[in-house]
């Protein structure tokens, strides 16, 4: 287990270094000189050029600049946004709450309804199973932005039940404003979780130990709880974890569709307005969140199922 954790931690570190380097170097890959990219094509006075050159160490070799950038980022200095005219770190700090709440809300929906319906479909054959499968097949193919538009058209415009844009204030206001976005974000991931849960439960029901338990006359409820759910919980936890971490990146699409002011929408607006420091800063935060969360899921998997860590030692 210790060796497994160490190996995974090393992988995490390497992944963080490589992805941060990719984000950093993208500035140099952009056509034209980095100064023009940083200013987003705006004309700069010589003084402003000197400030930017100094701030980004543009007169120094690439690796030195990467080091400055990375240590700066670790100290919370991600540069200054040219269109918002404030430090990128402040900008992220103001907006990350909305994104985190949105992902959390969608995650809760996925766990409650995805796992719940998956269990129901796995344990009850027939009409329930078939209809859950049909609905999840269609939901899986609906892109989050199409789901967003359908929800807006139906529940905000036609029925007027929920607000169509903005973050809302206070607890209930926030819940009200985030409900539709969270459903749009959860929809396709929810379908994946339903299907994996169902297949896992089915596979577990077909195991010999379940047959033996049935033949011994153990009540169905106990078989489900002790034999099926306990074993099925391992793969289900992993899939739920992976799908929820994937939501960090997808949140930008949903936030933009609903005009929420999270970091995802800020990333898109910065990409549109060529505000490069913001693009780099938010990309770094999102990738780091994604990578760390994925490592967490892997560790959780190893804790739930000790065979995983043992397997890595055998290699």
């Amino acid at each position: 287990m210790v060796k497994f954790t160490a190996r995974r931690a090393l992988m995490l570190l390497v992944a963080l270094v490589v992805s941060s380097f990719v984000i950093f170097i993208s500035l140099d890959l952009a056509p034209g000189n980095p100064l023009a990219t940083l200013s987003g094509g705006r004309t700069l006075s010589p003084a402003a050029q000197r400030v930017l050159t100094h701030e980004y160490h543009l007169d120094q070799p690439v690796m030195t600049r990467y080091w400055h950038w990375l240590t700066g980022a670790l100290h919370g200095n991600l540069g200054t946004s040219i269109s918002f005219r404030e430090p990128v770190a402040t900008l992220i700090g103001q907006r990350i709450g909305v994104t985190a709440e949105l992902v959390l809300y969608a995650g809760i929906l996925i766990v409650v309804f995805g796992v719940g319906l998956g269990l129901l479909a796995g344990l009850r054959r027939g009409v329930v199973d078939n209809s859950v499968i049909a609905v999840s097949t269609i939901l899986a193919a609906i892109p989050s932005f199409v789901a967003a538009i359908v929800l807006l058209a139906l529940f905000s415009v036609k029925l007027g039940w929920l607000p169509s844009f903005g973050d809302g204030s206070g607890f209930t206001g926030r819940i009200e404003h985030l409900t539709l976005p969270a459903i749009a974000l959860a929809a396709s991931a929810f379908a994946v979780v339903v299907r994996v849960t169902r297949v896992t439960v089915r596979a577990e029901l077909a195991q010999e130990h379940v047959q033996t338990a049935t033949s011994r006359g153990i009540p169905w409820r106990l078989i489900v709880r002790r034999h099926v759910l306990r074993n099925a919980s391992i793969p289900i936890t992993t899939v739920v974890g992976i799908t929820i971490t994937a939501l960090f990146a997808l949140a930008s699409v949903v936030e933009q569709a609903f005009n929420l002011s999270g970091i995802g929408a800020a990333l898109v607006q910065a990409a549109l307005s060529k505000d490069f420091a913001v693009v780099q800063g938010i990309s770094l935060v999102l990738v780091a969140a994604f990578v760390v969360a994925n490592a967490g899921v892997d560790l959780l998997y190893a804790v739930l199922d000790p065979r995983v860590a043992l397997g890595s030692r055998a290699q």
Partner: protein
Amino acid sequence: MSTSTGTVASAPLVFPRTRRRLAASRLVWGVCWAIVAIAVFLAIFGPLIAPHNPNYSQLQFQFVGPFKAQGYLLGFDSQGRDLLSRLVVGARTSMLGPVLVMLMSMGAGVVVAVISAWRGGWVDSAIGTVLDIMFAFPAILLAILTSAVFGAGLLAPTIALAIAYMPYIARVLRSAAVRERARDYISAAEVQGLSTAAICFKHLIPNLGGLVVAQGTLVFAWAMVDLASISFLGLGVQPPTADWGVMVSTGETGVLQGYPLESLSAGLCIVLVVVAVNLLGERMVARNDEREGR
């Protein structure tokens, strides 16, 4: 289909329920193939058969609904352009991007998988580690980043998505290639003195064919969703070009004013093609597994 229907027809006892199920599933596959065929046809011939110019705007007809004007079947969009023509013409960019992503990522994925399986040892584990690291970058985030770097358009996000999907494909194909590599016919070819390249291209890769096609369809479906999302964000195909992802976005003003047809019809086109391609791809994967006896 031929093998399964053969056994069913010769089996003495076929329950009517099974037969009904088979008929129903055959109907589903027929509909899926039809949707894909229509989408491909529109992508190629769309601009020729569109009833009107998709970019000709008649502002006085803004939001006029379907069947209201002669010759304008679906009515007009937020800028008074013929909606049907825009949907028909929009098939091209909406299908072209995913096809390019599929070709690039599958090409790279096959090469990486075969090298990894063939060389084994440290090459295999090095490639495995690099792929693990590449998983760190979510596809849509890489597409947004490249689009910010190289400017909005179809090309940059297409290449970004191809790079982001490659590890998924390479991993699946690698394990299949390792299995195939251990088979006798490969050793026989080696004994006969065939070059490595010849064995890989003439024997190994063709034998991965079923899985490659199956993976390719799934990649197409992912790419369609992700590219449409990028175009929806304004970072992909640029308006006024007709594209399904763009249309969902330009129609959003209409949605808020109570005229959701532009967004919804473009969204429906995306969903129909993605569902059809997904179902076909999943069936191919399942049949491939069956043939491999797994």
